[in-house]
């Protein structure tokens, strides 16, 4: 049984007089299978959010059928196993992160001990421990987004629906969300994610559907969509000029055309992350702090070498907290954080 099944789903928005206004989704059919990461890819206004809202029962399809975990999207039994991150922050601005997560935990009928434990672990995982006594209303967009992510995971959901999870996050945050999605998938969760950022989708999705104008334009696994079977790339270490010339000559002779040769480039994201990692390591050693919480480096929103980064990319990270020192990110800390994450998201929770 697919986790999400949409058959010929159409959504027409009507105006006050019930006249059709916008056909936001038009005859959408797809299914999301258990344990896969499914991406809805499309430009702004292509109907991604509308589709997700219908899957969550926030909107009702005008035509067609939708089933979530084998039930109607409006069935509370289905909702109990779903986590949702909306495209914007709809949190109560006057609650602290602790109170926010506690509140949503109560809605899932979690007991007090469980709520406390999960809240602490989620905040630690998302690097918001230092801000747990501030109200969500004062948070930057990226920080609020992290709280949104945390509340989506508080019930250890089987299906996680993320509407543009990386919007508003800095590159570290993006990477972290993507890693989180991969971890969730490894733990057998199903993830449905929408995005207009192609890199995000490419990195994490098993399958994608490309939406345009409310219709699916292409759907399939990333390799099947992107593989160019008419070309081939060979990678080898850089050679001295004279050797290279011989190689090219041989290739030219074999192919009958001029082969394209260039140095492979790292992508900017990887480069960025490497720079940050180096800066953080340097800073961590000099400060000499040895934090005991063992949180992975990339989970920490504040990096000491931020000034250097600002020249590279627009800065949308949460404000750095002056109090905390940068933790050393050794392999053990990383493993500990991963362990915590696994514990938190362990598939068989007592119900």
């Amino acid at each position, binding site marked *: 049984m697919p986790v999400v099944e949409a058959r010929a789903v159409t959504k027409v*928005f009507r105006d006050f007089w019930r006249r059709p206004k916008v056909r936001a989704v038009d005859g959408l059919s797809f299914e999301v299978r258990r344990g896969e990461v499914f991406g809805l890819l499309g430009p702004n206004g292509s109907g991604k959010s509308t589709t997700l*809202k219908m899957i*969550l*029962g*926030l*909107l*009702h399809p005008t035509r067609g059928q939708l089933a979530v975990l084998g039930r109607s999207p*409006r069935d*509370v*039994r289905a*909702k*109990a196993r*779903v986590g*949702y991150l*909306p495209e*914007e922050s*709809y*949190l*109560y601005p*006057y609650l602290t992160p602790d109170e926010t997560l506690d*509140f*949503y935990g*109560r*809605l*899932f*009928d979690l007991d007090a001990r469980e709520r406390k434990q999960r809240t602490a672990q989620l905040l630690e995982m998302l690097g918001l421990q230092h801000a747990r006594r501030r109200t969500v209303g004062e948070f930057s967009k990226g920080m609020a987004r992290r709280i949104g992510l945390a*509340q989506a995971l508080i*019930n250890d959901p089987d299906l996680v629906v993320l509407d543009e999870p990386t919007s508003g996050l800095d590159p570290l945050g993006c990477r972290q969300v993507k890693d989180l999605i991969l971890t969730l998938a490894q733990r057998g969760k199903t993830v449905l994610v929408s995005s207009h950022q192609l890199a995000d989708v490419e990195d994490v999705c098993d399958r994608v559907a490309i939406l345009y104008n409310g219709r699916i334009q292409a759907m399939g696994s990333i390799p099947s969509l992107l593989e160019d079977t008419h070309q081939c790339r060979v990678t080898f270490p850089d050679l001295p000029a004279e050797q290279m010339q011989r190689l090219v000559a041989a290739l030219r002779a074999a192919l009958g055309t001029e082969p394209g040769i260039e140095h492979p480039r790292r992508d900017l994201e990887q480069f960025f992350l490497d720079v940050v990692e180096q800066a953080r390591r340097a800073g961590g050693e000099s400060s000499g702090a040895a934090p005991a919480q063992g949180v992975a480096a990339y989970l920490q929103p504040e990096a000491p070498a931020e000034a250097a980064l600002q020249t590279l990319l627009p800065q949308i990270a949460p404000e750095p907290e002056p109090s905390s020192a940068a933790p050393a990110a050794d392999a053990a800390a990383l493993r500990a954080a991963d362990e915590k994450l696994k514990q938190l998201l362990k598939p068989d929770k007592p119900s």
Partner: protein
Amino acid sequence: MRSVWAIALISLRNAIRSRVVVLLLAILVLGVIGIPLTVKSDGTLAGYVQILVRYTLGFTMGVLMLATVWAGCAAVASEIQRRQIHLLITKPVSAAQLWLGKWLGLVILNTVVLAVCALVTYGLLRWNTRAEILTPADRQLLAAEIIVARARLAPQPFAAEQRAQQRYAALQTRNELPTNMAPAAIFKALLNAVQIEANTIQPGGRLTWRFDLPPGVSATPTFQLRCKVASALLGPMSMTGRWVVGRERGGAACEVVADHPAHGQFSVSVPGRALAGEGAVRVEYHNINETPVTLLFDVESGLRLLVPVGGWVPNYLRALLISVCLLALIAALGITAGSLFSMPVAAFATFQTLVIFNTAGMVHSLATREASFAAALPGVVQPPGWLDEAMSWFYRGLELLIMPMQNDDPLAMVATGEWISWGDVSWTFAKQVVLASGVLMLLAVAALRRRELALPTD
């Protein structure tokens, strides 16, 4: 239940953070402090207690009602507007739990605020009527007639309708019915005559009433008869009457001879021992005035027996409970309106509904207009016009709808020392909280389940 409480807590915090509600609560604090200081009473002790209990707490109720309408409407409507509802109803929370949580939050808020105001009021009352500053006479008055809870008992009814029907039948058999009057009008006139006769005392004559006592009547040195009379004497004249009061079985009747005004209302104090014994309480009035005067007791409320039932504080508590029921109903009304409409419309709809509720008296008279007289007549079949019939049904339906809002002002009752029974409390609870709020909740649940909550409302 856990999620209901969680939502209740959030709705409470939301209400407290609403500027309108905070403003109203500030006005409330000013009022509770200001009203007893600024409003002049008539100088009597009873007048002071009236002002304190009735106007201060009445003002509190008024402010709480306004705040509740606003907070109730905003509870769901603004959550939809700010889209916080997206995160609520994607959780395993049913529409009923959502509604209940919001409602519970407001009921708790109202209860707490009302309790605080009631406590302050009670403290002021006790402090300003403390023994040291009262004259002995005032002290006694306070204990006997003001800080009391007295049941106001109506006498056993007598079969006025039946007697009027008998007379009508007699006239009919003798063929003496006036031909220029509608049967309903004739009957009404006969009923009037029967009732006036039954409440009239000729010079030297007497009149008897019987009262059933409720359970829980407390022992008392004196109790009161409250009378409303009219007579042929004009001006501020006074006349003398003799009262004989006693139980039907196993007690000794007490006799009281007292002067009383010949017009209007007055009270007569009777020794408490007249209540010893069993059976109904018999009250006789003997018209022993020196100059012969015919006395008429008011047909509707000529004689009431005031007997103490329990203390004033429990009565005060019951009045507050009834007030909480009303606030709970208004909260329900607001939340349901907020589930159906977006914000300014919801508040408008709620106020409109409250206005209609306040016309209940008019609706009642429209619903029961004349029709019953015609129906009671033997041998008279009056085919009413279908429009009349339809209107009558419409008003009866409307009356049924607004019936839950109908009750006497409980604060006025405690302020005048009138007893409120637990039966009144349960009845109010049943109709306002269980029935009316329940129906409103079902309405909201139906609406919330049909509505697409992610649609923008503005």
